[in-house]
């Protein structure tokens, strides 16, 4: 077990390192942060730009900058933003909770909706509730999230004025972004729950549970669902990564001050330290979550624990 864990963690660190190298290299191909900071100014000479480059430290060779960044990572010092000089750790410190709470709220919405709907679809297979749920899920799958977000804003924020159109300010501000992300996840998850549930319901232990005279709810939610959970959990782990990627668009529409917004602005400003750090943190997170999911299998399914 310890050997397995060490190997997995080393793999994870290696992956994060590769990601940082690719990002650090790629962003430097896309433009000069000094020129961007001087945009809109009057006469900017090459000497002025050179001064700014020296101040930002981008005049040094790539490997010096990259190893400097790695060295900082070891002490959790991400450097300072090129735009305004705020420490990157401070920016991430406020953006990460905003993104994570939104991601979990979205997952929560999706779980709360997809489990009952998926189970209902499975138990009424081929009848109208199943058809309706499948159509709903198909529509959900084909929605682009920015469109859904805009429609929600038009309805709930402008026409009805029940919810704030954007911002990160208390419970009510979570509702629309979490529902936008959650509904789109639900569309996939409902199908997943339905399929695995159908498989499970055919199995012998369900027949036994029914034969024992257990109530149908107990059969479905205690015995059958637990066996679906492992598939669902794996999938949620994979989804979590996609969620953090897809959140950029939703964060922008809802003006959510999270990692997506931070990354987006950093790309526009060629803010190397911020972009590198955001991507490093996000990739570490995604890799970490997948590692945890692997370990969590054991908790849910005792058979894996003993293997």
């Amino acid at each position, binding site marked *: 077990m310890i050997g397995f864990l060490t190997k997995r963690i080393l793999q994870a660190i290696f992956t994060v390192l590769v990601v940082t190298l690719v990002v650090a290299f790629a962003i430097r191909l896309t433009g000069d942060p000094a020129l961007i900071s001087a945009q*809109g100014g009057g006469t900017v000479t090459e000497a002025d730009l050179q001064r700014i480059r020296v101040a930002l430290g981008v005049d040094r060779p790539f490997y010096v900058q990259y190893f400097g960044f790695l060295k900082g990572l070891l002490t959790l010092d991400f450097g300072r933003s090129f735009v305004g000089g*705020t420490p990157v750790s401070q920016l991430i410190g406020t953006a990460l909770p905003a993104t994570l709470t939104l991601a979990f709220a979205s997952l929560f919405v999706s779980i709360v909706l997809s489990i009952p709907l998926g189970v209902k679809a499975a138990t009424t297979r081929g009848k109208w509730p199943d058809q309706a749920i499948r159509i709903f899920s198909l529509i959900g799958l084909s929605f682009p999230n920015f469109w859904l977000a805009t429609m929600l804003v038009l309805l709930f924020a402008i026409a009805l004025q029940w919810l704030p159109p954007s911002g990160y300010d208390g419970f009510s501000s979570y509702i629309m972004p979490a529902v936008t992300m959650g509904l789109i996840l639900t569309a996939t998850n409902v199908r997943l729950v339905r399929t695995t549930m159908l498989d499970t319901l055919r199995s012998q232990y369900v027949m036994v549970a029914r034969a024992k005279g257990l109530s149908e709810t107990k059969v479905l939610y205690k015995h059958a669902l637990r066996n679906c959970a492992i598939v669902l959990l794996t999938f949620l782990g994979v989804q979590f990564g996609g969620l953090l990627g897809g959140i950029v668009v939703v964060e*922008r529409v809802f003006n959510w001050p999270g990692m997506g917004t931070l990354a987006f602005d950093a790309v526009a400003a060629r803010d190397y330290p911020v972009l590198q750090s955001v991507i490093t943190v996000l990739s570490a997170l995604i890799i970490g979550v997948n590692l945890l999911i692997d370990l969590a299998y054991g908790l849910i399914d005792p058979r894996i624990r003993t293997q």
Partner: protein
Amino acid sequence: MELKFTRSLLGALALSTALIAASPSLAAGKLTVSLSQDPGSWDPVDTFLVAWATVATNIFDGLTYRGPDLKLVPGLAESWQVSEDGKKITFKLRQNVKFHDGEPFNADAVKFTFDRLLGDEGSKGPQKSNYAAIEKVEVVDPSTVDFILKSPDPVLLTKLAGYGAMIVPPNYIKEKGEDYFNTHPVGTGAFKFISYEPKIGVKLEANPDYWGGAPKISELDYKFITEPATAVAELQAGRVDIVVPPIIPISMVPTIKGDSRLELMSVPGPTVDALRFNTRDGITADVRVRKAIIMAVDRKTIVDAILAGQASEIVSFQSSLSLGYDPDLKGLPFDPEGAKKLLAEAGVKPGAPLQIDIRGNDATMNEVAQAVSSYLQAVGLNPTIKPYELNVLLNDIIPQGKTGALFQQKWGGWTFDYDNTAYSMYHSGEKWNPYEKDAELDKLLESQRPMTDAAEREKVLKQIAAYVNDKALELPLYNSNAIYGVNKRVKNFTPAPDNRIKLNEVTVD
């Protein structure tokens, strides 16, 4: 006993009356403003961003002040005098002005500000080069300073009204440090800084001791909203009172106009768009072809149809508000037949290919380029549009001279002085001038820089515009309006062409 009671009552009454009289006029209400960008730092030497200036004009003051009418008036300097040779400006400073932290504003603060801007701290930012004409600032007495210039700079007094020239508090910066000042600015302005949350917003409160009179609202709340649709939604939901340009897209103008609670305020801004020519290679190296292209395009229709009238057509690469603008300068007329003739004369074969480079993220220009392209097709050319990622276009394509026959240039100098544009666009060796080398034009551009007589200089600037027009160095397009979306509960608000909206006179219902 009774007498005593009455007396103390009277005393209390008198005291409270005195207190009411002594307190400054009651500021009330909060105003929420949406900004399209978070400048990251509030230090005047750090940035060129208009979003910075929108907020900072309320926190800081310059020696001079320029409001929405673009007239230069005294700011922290009560008066000034320019020496005969234009190389010394003496400022008489306003007295009894205090920074928000209580330290006095005086000649030392002015000297500190410019020593800092022109020294190491300024070197890290983009502002220093704008003030390169200043050699040093000398303190004459606590309320008098001399600016000693290396060479006369006719735009300097305007430049002292904004951006890098905002006066900063010496003791505060020395005590708290540069990093702290970035995120906790202190100035002499109408509003005091309360808090700043990166990517979320910045809050200010009224400065009751403001030398220009206490503001009429108590709190200013700026929110950073980058997505146009979101900014407009917040305005419609009544959670934002003013949406500051440049964010409201032309396509959303009807939405705001159609909402009875909102008002659309639109003024000509500094931003101009042109498609400039590659005058070095290909068919556009021939002046006849360039003229033909200009004549082939109907700019008026483009402005009316695509920009919904939220712009005005231009014949020279400047706003009508800029010094150097010549209302009498006539551009080439819209004349497709004449264009065809010129093309034939230049030996351009029908179907000749032509590439137009534009900024991919500029939705308006994408539509405009389509229109330009069909106008050019109508005279027998075969244009293709190439949208670039903004920074690629600005870093790797234009300055390196790798553009197509035409390339988009967007420009907007807040000083509203044609020199700012013209010098960068047309002088040999400038970053934004990869193709043209013209000794005569260089001489004209250089000749106006040391002129201290504004009228004389304006004449030369007009000559430059006429010269460029004559050589057909660009296809001038339009000067965009600065579009503000404003909730009708906001009273006494004047939209500024340069986004620097000082909100001390504004009230809210």
